[in-house]
């Protein structure tokens, strides 16, 4: 046999030069350049797909399909028919509409947007398009036909494409209710150019620089291009755009508490320690209603974190609200809401002020009508703040919110005053109650504390007392072993039209993996059931051994990662307290066996508590160690127990973290951003055998 030919030896030599982080980045850069050159060459030859301006000069042939539908010509004009080839998963994010007839003599209104526009947690009972149609039917002196092209989770590029395609729909008005998903979309670095801009910003100005670069250099131009598309569409087809500026449930959403939300990005160790001292002080002051002290601590926190934490703004907002300064409270809550946007860490969709203002400015400068939900959904008593009754979570609207928002849109489209009802008249008491149960479930799934979840359940019971039967089904679903699909209560829950999507998706979870412990707890309280009902019904005795980290048993555990790096087979604590639920059918003595590591900790140990009682300490160290801690039966209880690991503040070097994040961006990966307080590979509770038990 011959040895490999010469070219291979050369490429091997090249590989040796490139087989490190810098080499990986180099190869990536070379390939990007190669692609860019090839693209430019292709455009020079006129072979590329038309850019948006080209497309404006040379309108393309109608697309075969728009969203989940294909275009069809009918005797009354262009209509839509649902595409048969799509899977149920693909169809489930669009409106459940088979056919749309031609508009005839009606004015056609197309509504596009994200899950808020889709009517998440309400659809198909109602949704914004239906509400808009109803209002228009009531007040207009001509016929309107509303088309629902909203798609759950649509991102900015797909929205851009959809809007472009909607130019072939003979639309008269295009209502855009979107913006919540735009920032997170920008995290999917589409090319080296974006990554380089972010890396440059990060290298230059730290995490504030990363955030600024993402907004100014990545996101803003894309939003501008999207908005330009609306103008081109107006110029070319006459369709009138109307922008709905999204609002966030500023006072009804808590970014504080639990271990599922980001507190603050990596700071210098002394600053991080000080930041957490201040946080403790602010939380204590808030509980003691010492509003001035809260404000002082929160402002000092912001000075340390550069406005990149949702915590101080939220605490400050609560203090200012309690002190009666709603305008200042709004500012603080907005700062909290916006703080993580652009930082490439996980949070739930939202439209930051920068985007809201960009939309408002665009409308003003180009004479595009708009409906600003910050005004439409404001509280009557404190108009600076949004009305919590209009929301089902952080951004999705209740039927009250939909009613108010779409009345305003109808008014803007018709030039008439449309008075919204107190609620959507097509939504009955039972359906409203169902939507509130779904809201409780979704808020719990998102990691909201019991204080946020509980009111939705109470409102559901107030809306329709008969809902307790459904709540009992939900409680049984959550307290059974095995995957949820095996519960006979699942069909009962999924039978509700608006609930089907949520429960079908939850079906593959196992209750202990479903993040719904708080919901179980709240349901048990509400239904006045004994605490042990929140524990697996089949367990007469504590299991011989139970792993508390769901990362150990299912890929779903990968959700523990609070940034966009790939999941790990162990948990990295990005906040100082790791909380783990332990369900017990009765108090039990046992051993907590933890496999842990603190690579960036100082000499202080981590402290482990069960239901608030200290049970031991974890010695800091760079290597994985196993620590066994005895737990007395007297510190455990029936039902939900909480094991907490309180980590010392880490000594992470900010400059090292930034360097490694710059390197990650250079290879097209997500930056880490966050501090690591400690790491857990396994946390097991091993009950001691009780005499008389097997």
């Amino acid at each position, binding site marked *: 046999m011959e040895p490999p030919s010469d070219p291979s030896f050369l490429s091997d030599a090249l590989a040796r030069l490139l087989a490190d982080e810098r080499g990986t980045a180099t*190869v*990536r850069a070379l390939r990007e350049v190669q692609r860019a050159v090839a693209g430019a060459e292709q455009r020079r030859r006129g072979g590329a797909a038309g850019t948006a301006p080209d497309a404006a000069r040379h309108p393309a042939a109608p697309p075969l399909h728009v969203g989940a539908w294909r275009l069809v010509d009918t005797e009354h004009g262009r209509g839509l028919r649902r595409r048969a080839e799509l899977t149920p998963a693909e169809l489930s994010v669009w409106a459940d509409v088979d056919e749309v007839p031609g508009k005839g003599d009606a004015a056609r209104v197309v509504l596009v947007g994200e899950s808020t526009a889709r009517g998440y947690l309400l659809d198909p009972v109602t949704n914004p398009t239906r509400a808009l149609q109803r209002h228009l039917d009531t007040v207009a002196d001509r016929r309107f036909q509303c088309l629902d092209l909203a798609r759950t989770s649509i991102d900015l590029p797909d929205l851009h494409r959809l809007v472009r395609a909607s130019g072939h729909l003979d639309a008269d008005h295009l209502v855009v209710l979107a913006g919540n998903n735009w920032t997170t979309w920008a995290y999917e670095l589409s090319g080296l150019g974006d990554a380089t801009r972010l890396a440059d910003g990060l290298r230059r100005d730290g995490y504030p620089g990363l955030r600024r670069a993402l907004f100014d250099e990545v996101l803003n131009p894309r939003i501008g291009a999207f908005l330009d598309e609306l103008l081109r569409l107006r110029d070319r087809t006459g369709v009138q755009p109307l922008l709905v500026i999204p609002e966030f449930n500023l006072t009804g959403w808590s970014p504080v508490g639990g271990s599922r939300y980001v507190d603050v990005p990596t700071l210098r160790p002394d600053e991080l320690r000080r930041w957490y001292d201040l946080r403790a002080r602010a939380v204590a002051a808030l509980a003691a209603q010492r509003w001035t002290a809260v404000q002082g601590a929160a402002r000092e926190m912001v000075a340390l974190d550069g406005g990149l934490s949702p915590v101080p703004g939220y605490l400050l907002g609560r203090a200012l609200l309690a002190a009666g300064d709603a305008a200042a409270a709004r500012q603080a809550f907005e700062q909290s809401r916006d703080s993580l946007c652009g930082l490439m860490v996980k949070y739930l969709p939202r439209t930051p002020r920068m985007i809201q203002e960009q939309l408002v400015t665009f409308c003003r400068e180009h004479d595009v009508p708009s409906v600003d939900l910050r005004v439409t959904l404001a509280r009557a008593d404190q108009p600076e703040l949004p009305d919590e009754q209009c929301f089902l979570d952080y951004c999705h609207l209740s039927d009250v919110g939909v009613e108010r928002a779409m009345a305003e849109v109808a008014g803007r489209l018709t030039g008439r005053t449309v008075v919204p009802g107190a609620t959507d008249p097509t939504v009955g008491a039972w359906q409203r109650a169902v939507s509130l149960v779904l809201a409780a479930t979704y808020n719990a799934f998102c990691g909201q504390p019991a204080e946020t979840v509980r009111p939705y359940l109470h409102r559901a019971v107030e809306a329709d007392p008969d809902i307790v039967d459904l709540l009992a089904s939900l409680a049984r679903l959550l307290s059974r072993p095995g995957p949820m699909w095996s519960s006979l209560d699942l069909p009962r829950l999924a039978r509700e039209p608006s609930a089907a999507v949520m429960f079908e998706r939850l079906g593959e979870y196992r209750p202990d993996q479903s993040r719904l412990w708080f919901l179980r707890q709240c349901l048990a309280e509400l239904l006045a059931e004994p605490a042990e009902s929140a524990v697996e019904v089949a367990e007469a005795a504590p299991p011989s051994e139970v792993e508390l980290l769901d990362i150990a048993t299912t890929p779903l555990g990968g959700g523990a990662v609070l940034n966009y790096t790939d999941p790990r087979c162990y948990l990295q604590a990005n906040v100082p307290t790791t909380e783990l639920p332990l369900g017990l059918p009765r108090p039990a003595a046992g051993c907590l066996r933890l496999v842990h590591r603190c690579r960036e900790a100082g000499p202080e140990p981590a402290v482990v508590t069960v239901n608030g009682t200290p049970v031991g300490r974890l010695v800091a160290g760079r290597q994985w160690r196993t620590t066994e801690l005895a737990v007395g039966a007297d510190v455990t209880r029936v039902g939900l127990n909480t094991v907490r690991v309180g980590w010392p503040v880490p000594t992470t070097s900010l400059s090292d973290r930034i360097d490694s994040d710059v390197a990650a961006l250079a290879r097209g990966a997500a930056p880490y951003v966050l501090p690591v307080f400690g790491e857990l590979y396994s946390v097991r509770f091993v009950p001691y055998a009780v005499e008389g038990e097997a």
Partner: protein
Amino acid sequence: MIVVGVSAFYHDSACAVVVDGEVVAASQEERYTRRRFERGVPMYAYRSCLEQAGIGPGDIDMVAYYENPTKKLGRQLWMLLADGGDRGVGELDAMQPAREIRDRLGYDGPLAVVDHHEAHAASAFYCSGFDEAALFTADAVGEWTTTSCGVGSASGVELRQQVPFPHSLGLLYSTVTSYLGFSVNSDEYKVMGLAAYGRPRYLGALAQLVLNSADGDLRLDTRYFRLRADGAMYTAALTDLLGLPPRPVRAPIEAVHRDLAASVQLLLEELLLEKVRYLHGIYPSDNLCYSGGVAHNCVANTKLRRGGGFRNWYVPPAPGDAGGALGAALLVQHRETGARPTTALTDARLGPFCDGRGAARVLHAAAVPYEDFAGREEALLEATADLLAAGTVVGWCRGQMEFGPRALGSRSILGDPRDAGMRERINRLVKKREEFRPFAPAVVAERAGEFFDLEVPSPFMLEAVAVRPGAGLPAVTHVDGSARVQTVERGTDPRFHSLLERFGRRTGVPVLLNTSFNVRGEPIVRDDVDALSCFVRAGIDVLVVGDLLVRQEDVPGVWREYLARAGSYHDRLAHNDAYSFFV
């Protein structure tokens, strides 16, 4: 010393644990993520293997990775530069394995890198129980190598000759797989099954793809191959040569397609035989250890074993890339400490244990009737044998999961091989696969010779031999009269052996149809809840999970309805007609 082997970032990622020279655990990541051929770092398999080994991450002395990333990068760069283009090329990142093993597995200790074909060879040699052996590996490509040969001895594994990329038996076979409209890197076994229906009338044409195969070498005529990650693997020149258009995906299979499959299968067999005979000539050992993805081809395997010149031979249970994790761990263990397994690995059950307790809790909570045979093993086996003899299809999930692509009696669907309709029934209910694909038999080892023309044990279902005339096994007999046999030793798997025996007592045939416990497009089930779900969705008659026996008629209809709907969210299978060795 504890060594953990890892294979990842191509396909079939896996993890294995070797402690003081003994294989303690091994499993494939796809069984946990439920994505076939999972390529990501095996974080769930890693956790599972450590759990089985009774160790924590701090106990590991060394991690062994199954491929040299720098050498692989060299080949990727060569392809990239030679190709002059960039379409479909994945990330070129030689740091990825080390970075992800450290970051995503949380491992901080020493990391050893083993060449890809060394890992293949080691997985065969160290598990063979041979003191010395000739070594032969063949796959698509690993780093630069596509085929290698060498020797294994007390001093370790030494590969002395290799065929460089792109001259590859695996790529040759995959190219025709692609031409026949099947998915590359997964559907090669379909081509093997289809081959039995055809006549090798394209052999002469296909032989022109091979320029030289003398003395263990191989040179392909690259004009016919398009070895890029995007698009088909063949060029128009191949169409011209064959005078036959490529078969579109999911188009009807016609005689010409069967003939082309027969031709490429025969060509592969001839080329392999040539290589192995050459190897025997230069390393005239009694023993041959054979591994690599091509060793999945059981039809060729039997011909090699019989015609290659070696007296004894060993193919490991996972000859493909998953097995590379095991080979890398064994090789590093031997290099570091001199420790190695002292006996042959004849039991592929190296994965996590299923005892049925999870299923019991689910069934109990839903008030679904089931029989619990805990402590009554004999009764369970008797009841199952009765059901099988009565024509019942049984899902069988007990004990430790097998390592490798085959279900060998721990995660299996079982049926009566005497029933001519059984193949069609299981295909319709469970597998929903092409009708030309045969099902395999499991047989008690001591009576294998009565039913099959098989003179050696075949514990990993890696041999295809003739079914004896009059054996009466239509459900497991392929159109050419062959069967892909698994022999079951009493000492290796007494439970499964006993089931076969009891079935034999009732029917005179200690043979069962044994196919993997999964539905089309999904990996084999791992735990009891996977098994329960698959049982319900597929409509299998009876499930034996751990010590429990559940009947389909007792399952609530709402389970079936829900799982049917949920399944529709996952039923879109990605078709892969391009070779993905770049990524």
